[in-house]
């Protein structure tokens, strides 16, 4: 039995070395294929200081599709970093923003708000353990510690921090050789043919737990307020916007009026610029799927609405 243990120890030691090599290779490979992951963007950002940082879920992502971020920078003369990632609510965005502040600076924060992200842990706590996000998040000890802190304080599954620290999702990433692009980006120039079925499916997907859980809404509004407070303490100006969506989509959002009401009651919202563009652009030709702006829509939105906000006019 002793000899078996000795062999097992040597076997495990070699295994650990091989694992470390695989980890290192995965980490390096990530710098070749990385793109949309917010932590990757923070690590590889061109500048130390930005005029605007954008946070939010997938509705904010088209602002960085293709060359659109460069277009906005050119039009405004501002430095803009988009840290939005798909399906992420206020808790995950706070996590991203905290890390951003340890590495870079910004004068302004634009938060693209979606009500769906305030109703379910699926868009908050669970996002920390998302294999696709973890697979593209570069390793930094500070991120690991911060994630462990979120496990202790915010109820995030400790397996997320363990997964991140061990690099498991990175090593196990089946798309390791593919660029880290959100599937929506490939459709950015397309026009969506309105479909009641697709819209209904999308709403069902976005609200997996419905909107009945008052405690969840309370919790995530609190997280959002904490994020706004964090920005205020750093002297960062905040603007909050709701992106345009087709009226067909908007009309099916459950309890949107209640959400707006609860949002407006947040003390932290009193000190920020808030613009609700939800019903500003109903033209179907402006969308590439049931609720995301395509290039034409985004150009119109930027020229007519967003540019003024970014330029603080």
């Amino acid at each position, binding site marked *: 039995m002793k000899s078996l243990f000795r062999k097992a120890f040597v076997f495990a030691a*070699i295994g650990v070395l091989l*694992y470390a090599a*695989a980890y290192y290779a995965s980490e390096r490979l990530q710098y070749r294929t990385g793109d949309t992951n917010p932590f990757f963007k923070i690590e590889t950002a061109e500048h130390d200081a930005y005029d605007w940082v954008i946070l939010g879920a997938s509705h904010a992502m088209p602002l960085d599709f293709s060359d659109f971020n460069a277009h906005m920078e050119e039009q405004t003369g501002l430095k803009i970093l988009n840290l939005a990632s798909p399906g992420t609510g206020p808790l995950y965005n706070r996590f991203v923003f905290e890390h951003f502040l340890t590495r870079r600076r910004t004068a302004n924060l634009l938060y693209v708000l979606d009500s769906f992200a305030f109703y379910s842990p699926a868009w908050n706590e669970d996002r920390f353990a998302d*294999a696709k996000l973890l697979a593209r998040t570069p390793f930094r000890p500070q991120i690991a510690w911060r994630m462990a802190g979120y496990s202790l304080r915010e109820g995030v599954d400790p*397996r997320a921090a363990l997964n991140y620290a061990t690099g*498991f999702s990175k*090593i*196990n990433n*089946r798309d390791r050789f593919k660029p880290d692009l959100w599937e929506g980006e490939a459709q950015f120039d397309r026009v969506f043919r309105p479909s009641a079925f697709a819209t209904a499916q999308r709403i069902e997907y976005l609200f997996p737990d419905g909107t009945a859980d008052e405690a969840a809404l309370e919790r995530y509004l609190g997280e959002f307020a904490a994020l706004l407070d964090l920005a205020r303490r750093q002297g960062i100006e905040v603007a909050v916007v709701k992106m345009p969506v087709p009226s067909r989509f908007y009309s099916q959002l459950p309890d949107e009026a209640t959400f707006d009401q609860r949002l407006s009651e947040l003390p932290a919202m009193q000190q920020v610029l808030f613009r609700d563009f939800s019903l500003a652009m109903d033209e179907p030709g402006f969308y590439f799927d049931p609720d995301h702006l395509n290039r034409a829509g985004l150009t119109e939105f930027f020229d007519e609405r967003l540019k003024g906000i970014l330029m603080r006019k």
Partner: protein
Amino acid sequence: MLFNSFGFFLFLPLVLAVHAALPTGRRWAWLLVASYVFYASFEPTNALYLAFVTLVIYLCGWGMGQTERRPVRIALLVAGLVIVLGLLVTFKFYDFLAGELERAGAVFLADDAVFNLPRLGVVTPVGFSFYAFSAASYLIDVYVGKLAPQRHGGHVALFTAFFPKILAGPIERATNFLPQLREGLRAHPEQIVAGAQLIVWGLFKKVVIADNLAPLVDRNFAIAAFATPIDLLISVYFFAFQIYCDFSGYTDIAIGVALLFGIRLMENFRRPYLSRGTGEFWGSRWHISLGHWFRDYLYFPLGGSRAGRIRQYANLMTVFVVSGLWHAGLGYGVGWTFLVWGALNGFYQWVGLATAPVRRRLAERLPRLAASTPVLVLQVLVTFHLIAIAWVFFRAASVGEAVLILQKIAAGLGQMPGLLPRYPFTAEHYLGFGLIAFLVFVEVLDERRSIWQRLAAAPVALRWGAYYAGIFALLLLGRWQAREFIYMQF
């Protein structure tokens, strides 16, 4: 807590550590506690069903041991079987049959006579099909005198609950399991090594092969009406290997984990797709523990092959239809597809039986040809395709859909040689074909001489290289999002 979940990777070392620290005579008790914790992790009330089944077979077995009177012993056997198997049948079929009766009623009765039957509305305990059959075998073995009634209730409880096998077998026999408990649970170094090897190989089959084949299969079976014949043909092939690797992967892990505790479970798979006939496939290579269960507790009692030719045919069909019904609910819901699947496999046995004399005579006249490699390969390929056709009924959502899939493939076969070069094969396809080719290569080697014996005889560098390759294949290619094992979903 699935075998391919993070929870199990914490659970197993903990159970092993405590197990090793206890005196051998007490280890069964710890394993019993661990088994109930494991089983209750899926749904706490599951443990109640398990305890109930255990209590029933223990009491009936004990009762049979208290008397020599045949009527009493028969009554106890029947009571035990009716309770255990009755529960199984009720769980599996009650809601399904209620729905079918309502549908039939809607067709045959007047509109105002529409009736609604109550539903059970309970989530069926995972693994019930497996431990119910193990429990039934205990009762029958006690009745026929193959096994003395057990006084040790804890041992009987561990026999039904032992966590490696509870979800999807092997359908263990008490005659194999209980003597090992009496001897005391002690794992030898060779058993530990063999157990670890089987766990890695089982995980490889499950998370690397089966779970990488599954997405393509699921996609095409979900849109069978719109999929092309090539899509469907590839999906049928992939499914044949998916279900094999999923189920045998589970079994390998179960046997491997049991070995770490010093318990040898029954062999359940023996390279089934290398069978040269469907009789061989079902008789001695695929889900052996179930095949032997049906042979010993249904086919033989019905008279087997000794009750005349007609009865033999009837007995074979009975066994396969019942086997089809047993499979209902394993992974793909309860439906008529399983009845057709069972009957089709029964029909294969009929054909095999009817043509056996002709094939035997041919083999006697042309012995060299019969034993030649091309003929062997042809037999293996024909058997594989017959089984794969039957799997379509197992996997499809309905009999109509299964027929549609087979029709589309058959209609498209002629054009396939022309279409295949233009088919948009993806990395997913190439990975799937590569994994299948690797599996077949390993199994062919294993068929000639055990792969574990080959490894044991190999130089350390080669042996360890193979282990690392297996482990790192799990890390690099495995799908670890804890997809359930197909056979445990009932």
